[in-house]
């Protein structure tokens, strides 16, 4: 395959940045998108051009590092995959592909396609945990049976990989899908109910302080989420938030 790539290049957070075009040949449809980027970078390096910086690590769709906005979609045209699992067979010979970073005010660009998502970490510092000591003197794991349905729903929320596709996709740069997944994961389980009120209040407060926008129920986040995190989580968080606000 022969492709034209239009890639966002930005030296550092102070640089203005611009789109630069590159031509690339001999791309196999069996390559992953990031392997195609590897080929490009080998070629750029050989020509003495600074390679394109991008975040990536596990390359199997679970670490949440990779974060490319491809042809106007977070993680590209395929559904339920991260960029690293996107394969070139989803493109055609001669295609032009636009590649940009995950853009949001709360995700400042570090270099090229690499963004700073530490705002996600700070939201979780504000309450993304159950206050239990790691001493091992906890009760037996089977002491509290948990209804399978709740356990499965908590698991579904917990599969969020924190990549930020939801934020990058949202026209308001809202982080509601991410935060609601984190809140739901705990509030659906009996262990997490004890401090559920404080958790949702604190995490939402931090989300606002980080500058993420509001949710206007567009639902684009759910469509682009590589892990299929459901909008139901947002509805649940809104209910939890309201309940907590009234009772506090």
């Amino acid at each position: 395959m022969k492709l034209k790539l239009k890639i966002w290049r930005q030296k550092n957070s102070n640089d203005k940045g611009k789109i630069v075009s590159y031509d690339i040949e001999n791309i196999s449809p069996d390559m992953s998108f990031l392997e195609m980027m590897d080929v490009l970078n080998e070629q750029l390096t050989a020509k003495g051009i600074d390679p394109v910086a991008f975040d990536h690590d596990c390359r199997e769709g679970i670490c949440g590092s990779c974060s490319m906005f491809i042809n106007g979609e977070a993680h590209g045209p395929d559904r339920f995959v991260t960029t690293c699992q996107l394969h070139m067979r989803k493109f055609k010979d001669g295609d032009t592909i636009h590649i940009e970073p995950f853009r949001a005010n709360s995700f400042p660009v570090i270099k090229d396609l690499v963004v700073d998502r530490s705002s996600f970490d700070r939201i979780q510092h504000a309450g993304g945990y159950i206050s239990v000591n790691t001493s091992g003197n906890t009760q037996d794991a089977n002491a509290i049976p948990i209804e399978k349905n709740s356990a499965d729903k908590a698991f579904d929320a917990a599969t969020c990989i924190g990549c930020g596709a939801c934020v990058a996709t949202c026209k308001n740069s809202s982080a509601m899908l991410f935060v609601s997944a984190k809140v739901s994961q705990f509030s659906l389980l009996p262990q997490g109910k004890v401090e559920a009120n404080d958790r949702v209040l604190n995490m939402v407060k931090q989300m606002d302080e980080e500058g993420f926008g509001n949710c206007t129920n567009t639902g684009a986040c759910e469509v682009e989420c590589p892990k299929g995190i459901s909008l139901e989580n947002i509805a649940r968080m809104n209910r939890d938030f309201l309940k907590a606000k009234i009772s506090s």
Partner: protein
Amino acid sequence: MSKVKAKIPEGPISKKWTNHKNNIRLVSPANKRLIDVIVVGTGLAGGSAAATLAELGYNVKAFCFQDSPRRAHSIAAQGGINAAKNYQGDGDSIHRLFYDTVKGGDYRSREANVYRLAEVSANIIDQCVAQGVPFARDYGGLLDNRSFGGVLVSRTFYAKGQTGQQLLLGAYSAMNRQIARGKIQMFNRHEMMDLVKIDGKARGIITRNLINGKIERHSAHAVVIASGGYGNLFYLSTNAMGSNVSASWKIHKKGAYFANPCFTQIHPTCIPVSGDHQSKLTLMSESLRNDGRIWVPKSKSDSIAIREGRLKPVDLSEDKRDYYLERRYPAFGNLVPRDVASRAAKERCDSGFGINKTGEAVFLDFASAIIRYGKEKAHLKGLDEDNLSLVKDLGKEVIKSKYGNLFQMYEKIVDQNPYETPMMIYPAVHYTMGGVWVDYNLMTTIPGCFAIGEANFSDHGANRLGASALMQGLADGYFVLPYTIGDYLADDIRTGSISIDCKEFEEAENAVKNKIDLLINNKGIKSVDYFHKKLGKIIWNKCGMSRNEKELKEAIEEIQLLRKDFYKNISVPGSEDSFNEPLAKAVRVSDFLELGELFAKDALERSESCGGHFREESQTKEGEALRDDTNFTFVSAWENKGEPSEAVLHKEDLIYENIELKTRSYK
């Protein structure tokens, strides 16, 4: 050569850990506030250790090269975590888990450590559930289990195919709580560049900020290395792209012995290599072997027909298939340990029965499991058990609920539907049992420097059983190190904070800066990946699934030459004071180029076969691994003397008082 002593406590094995905990020295809560601990790596071992140390009151500084501790590669572990809970009532016990792990490791692990691991395993599950880890449950609301290779009970707890992710998020949430309290200072996108020793003790590290290239000094009273394994030595592995040996290697060069470097796990069920562009390999969880049956055609002509696309695997009748694991190992069948399954796949493919274009793949087939589950479901719902298409649909639903994400991952990568046609799999490098040598307290041969999780060597011997890595990482981090480190730190309560303005820090920092200057200014003609790929090829071809004297000797020479070529011809683009991934990679590959040689040297020295280490010179008539207990019942602990070729071998004798050394049989 000398003998290394592991400081294993006296007494019967079931009392050792309890007695040790009762007798080791403690640091009072007031004094813990005066003590700093550095933790490098935030996977299951590092994350859980950082959280627990901070909770106990120590001031923790944690470092990871990823942009968040939650992205450490433990996150990619799929199948599950073992614990001797005996919830299934199938006769499991601490002793059985201990026995299975020692046997699975082919009698090359340390009894006392493995027993302790089995002992604390049950606590891990309690702990994780309390933290909100959503393990799989049955309809009664209780925890579910499945079975893994090399054992005859169901003791594996799981969260679909994302167990590592859920456990790591648990450890990360425990870290978040301590970060919020100010007890953990978290340094993301930081790479450890060297260890700093003062008066022979580990007192700090030099790091590089991966965003702006700044070289920084960090001091502490103890340093914990939890940076994982070195599978990326092979270039292609199931490790993350950033996984590296550098932290372990730096401490090795400063005096920590490196143990059994050649003990590598080649995992039997990975997606086969598709071409030269390949950057990494993807694992298909061992849990799939609960329900998947592994086969190749009985006749070579059928294999060739499948390869060339003339025959579909589903059209080949049962009597023409060779379910070779079930044939060779009737007792364990498809659930033999990983080393055995991998070698059996290689044997079939080397004999010409491989089924994909490259001839290096075998089938993992779910067709019979789909029918079995489908009939069960149909019976349960009172539907027609003889309606094949209905049964298949019901069976697929069950398989989807168990392995849905794995099947989806396979389909995305290979572009085939594994519900309809069998998966193609082949062995790939997955885990390294070898690592930094540690004593019973998990301390390396450098006082004050500890190693935990995959970075150390002690628990898995020559072959790790499935679902034991997560268990060991969390055992070390939550329940072992936080106790044992106190014994060492009890001497440091009056030391006061360690200054970074001393010659030891300055020397280490200068050495790091010089190395980076050297790499950046070399302006050669070959990229980092060129060297990494070449090194990987040497190791895979000559020190891979089977090894012999001639090729190991060749490998050593080739790696030496490649290392020379590296320093002559390496080209690193960009500058040192910016985000520069090729530079970070060049540093990592330079360490792999040294480790690779020691790896081959260790494999050469150990002329027996054991676990994942298969020496062609040492095998039975049936081609099974032949151990040599008379000459090799020891841990090889290598001391650095400059070049890897000069490394000196020390031995830790392995003494089996509770388990009889036997030939491992899964037949």
